């Protein structure tokens, strides 16, 4: 049991570290280190320009898309090399946020189902940050029940005509390409009538409308399709096989998310250290101490769980659905911590302005962002189902929509 790199890993880490030290955009250090959950101190377009610049630099030096094959602009690295890269990249990794879905989910899906020519044309542009991709699966009436989606694609000669609506599409307003899951046959059971495409987001027939979230940001969009025409050549997988294709995409999502989830605990500890209650240090208060202890147990537990997964990667094993515990624990924990910190801030805990709120308003940012964390990418309830069914082997919920033609499944209003 040790935290040491193998000799190969150490060599690789040294190489990464040297390159980052020489090339990282250090002028962004302050902005990156004070950005909090869902809020950065820079405007989104400037941020995007910095992101693209860093991505291009990485790609040119061979550090982009670590896990992709070199032929598409990646590095062909091992999973553990990818982990080492991201440890060393540190807060510069925040800049890569806008490429995560494209490089982590869309890219692998393309590699599995698009033609060699399509991939050779599009993937290097994704790897170098020239293009940004999005993923269009969720719909207003298809969230946890993703396969309940209603966006219709109908064949018309060599093309498909698509009508419907997607939601929660990250970055759709600035994306160049996207993958799109549609229903091509409503007369069969719901998982069987789906088909996947990739589409140019600048096509006529696509309209993007931003969604304002509780914290005031608009990271997500609604995307409307009105007679959008897509060539059959842009189909990924066979007609009716869309669910299988989507599972490939989603499998990659979970791995990405399982990494290191923010909990707010280090911030709380740091805040409490500087706090006093009417002349007595807050950290000497029994109630504060008990909260710190209880939450350290969760936060340290997540961190060490992540080390166990990295160790498994290092041995060539693939972490399974147990990675779901990261988001499940971290989401609620951040919400509880943010509410408690505001409580300790008394009346000033209500202030959300970065400049005037105590501790830079970081806990208020968490207060308004964490409700979304408990929902996006799998709700707490779905994650518990995944743990129960796939880790513990418990039976699935009773499914009333199984073997029922999609058009006949009860859908409510």
């Amino acid at each position, binding site marked *: 049991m040790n935290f040491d790199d193998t000799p190969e890993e150490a060599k690789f880490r040294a190489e990464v570290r040297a390159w980052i030290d020489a090339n990282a955009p250090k002028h962004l250090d302050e902005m990156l280190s004070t950005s909090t959950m869902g809020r950065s101190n820079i405007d989104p377009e400037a941020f995007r320009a910095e992101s693209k610049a860093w991505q291009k630099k990485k790609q040119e030096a061979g550090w982009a898309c670590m896990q992709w094959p070199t032929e598409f602009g990646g590095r062909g690295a091992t999973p553990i090399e990818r982990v080492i890269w991201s440890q060393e990249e540190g807060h510069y990794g925040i800049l890569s946020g806008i490429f995560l879905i494209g490089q982590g989910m869309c890219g692998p899906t393309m590699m599995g189902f698009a033609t060699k020519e399509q991939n050779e044309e599009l993937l290097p542009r994704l790897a170098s940050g020239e293009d940004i991709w999005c993923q269009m699966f969720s719909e207003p009436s298809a969230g946890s029940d993703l396969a309940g989606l209603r966006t219709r694609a109908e064949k018309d000669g060599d093309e498909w005509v698509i009508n419907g609506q997607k939601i929660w599409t990250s970055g759709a307003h600035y994306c160049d390409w996207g993958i799109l899951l549609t229903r091509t046959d409503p007369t069969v059971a719901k998982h069987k009538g789906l088909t996947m495409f990739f589409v140019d987001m600048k096509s006529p027939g696509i309209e993007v409308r931003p969604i304002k979230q509780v914290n005031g940001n608009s990271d997500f969009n609604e995307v409307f399709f009105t007679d959008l025409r897509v060539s059959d050549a842009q189909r990924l997988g066979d007609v009716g096989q869309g669910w299988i294709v989507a599972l490939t995409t989603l499998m990659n999502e979970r791995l990405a998310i399982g990494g290191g989830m923010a909990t707010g605990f280090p911030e709380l500890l740091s805040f409490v250290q500087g706090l006093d209650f009417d002349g007595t240090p807050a950290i000497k208060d029994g109630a504060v101490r008990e909260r710190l202890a209880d939450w350290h147990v969760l936060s340290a537990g997540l961190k060490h769980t992540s080390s166990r997964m990295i160790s498994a990667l290092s041995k060539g094993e693939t972490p399974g659905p147990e990675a779901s515990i990261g988001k499940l624990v971290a989401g609620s924990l951040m919400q509880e911590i943010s509410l408690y910190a505001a*409580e300790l801030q008394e009346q000033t805990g209500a202030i959300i302005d970065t400049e005037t709120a105590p501790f830079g308003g970081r806990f208020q940012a968490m207060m308004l962002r964490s409700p979304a964390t408990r929902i996006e990418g799998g709700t707490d309830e779905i994650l518990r189902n995944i743990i129960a069914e796939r880790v513990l082997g418990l039976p699935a919920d009773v499914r009333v929509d199984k073997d029922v033609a999609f058009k006949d499944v009860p859908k409510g209003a």
Partner: protein
Amino acid sequence: MEFDFNEDQKMLRDTARKFLEAECAPDKVRAILDDDSKTYDEGLYAKLVEMGFTGAAIPEEFGGLGLGYLELCVIAEELGRALAPVPFASSIFLAAEALLIAGSDAQKAAWLPKLVSGEAIGTLAMSEGNGVPSARNTDTRLEGGKVNGVKAVVPDGASANLIVALVRTSSGDSAKSLSLALVDASSGVTATSQHTVDPSRKMADLSFDGASAELLGGEGEGLSLLEQILDRAAVLTAFEQLGGATRALEMGVDYAKERFAFGRQIGSYQAIKHMLADMYVSQELARSNAYYGAWALSTDAAELPLAAATARVSGTQAFQHCSKNNIQTHGGMGFTWEVDAHLYYRRSNHLALTLGSLRQWKDKLATQLEKQNQAA
């Protein structure tokens, strides 16, 4: 035993609910939430005055209806349910109660009728942004009829004409160095708005620069009077929180019945059902604790400090719990600006912080338990 509101009070509740459903739909709340330039809904507040709600617990001699605290509790619950974007709590639960507790006849006669009629808006300024209101944390001072200093994030601070402020009247760390001052905000007071978690109830820093003021209550009694004001306001606010919690629960239940996933209502899944059942439990316990607080308030019972702290902690927890899990029940829609779920989440966190935190109230509660047990 009639541990419940009576028929007249229940009729008042129905009246208030219907009135607020008509006059304070969510778009009214959003109109204040979305507009930094508006401190509250003046039209709505005028109508609440017209309905007599502001004067429910204020004696007739001071322009009120003299009904009593139980009636005011009923109204508070409905205001909470509707998320009314008005300075009712600041003006009535805090400022008017401060006057009723500590004001001279002249002070009451001068201000209570104005608070009832809405001609004046009052508030309470206790904190200076550095923790609990205490001698150590209070620099604002009253000298020669003038107040100087700064009070932080005062609810409805920018709307208030009348400010009850905790001030220093002598030097030192003794509790006796603090008093309450009645500050006329017409000159010498500058309000700086703060962006806070619930912009439908605005807050502002108040800077006092030689504003005219007089003592409210005896010199040196600032902290003990503050305790009394907060006990009363805690009970009334617990009803406001209860109203919010109840409505957030209802929204969750309604959505769980409407929304389908995997071919059935999400409310048929135990994860959702049991989350809602637990919200019901916390709401129901908060209701019972609020009722006990109302009984203690309305009878001026010796149990008031314990009952108030219990109602406060229970109400705060229930509203936070219900508003948080109402968002969770709504799934992705829950964290959009467009759906009303966040309005309740905001309000729950606003109310959790305006009268002193859970930490302070749990501590008060424990102090009362100690006393009670020693007496027994």
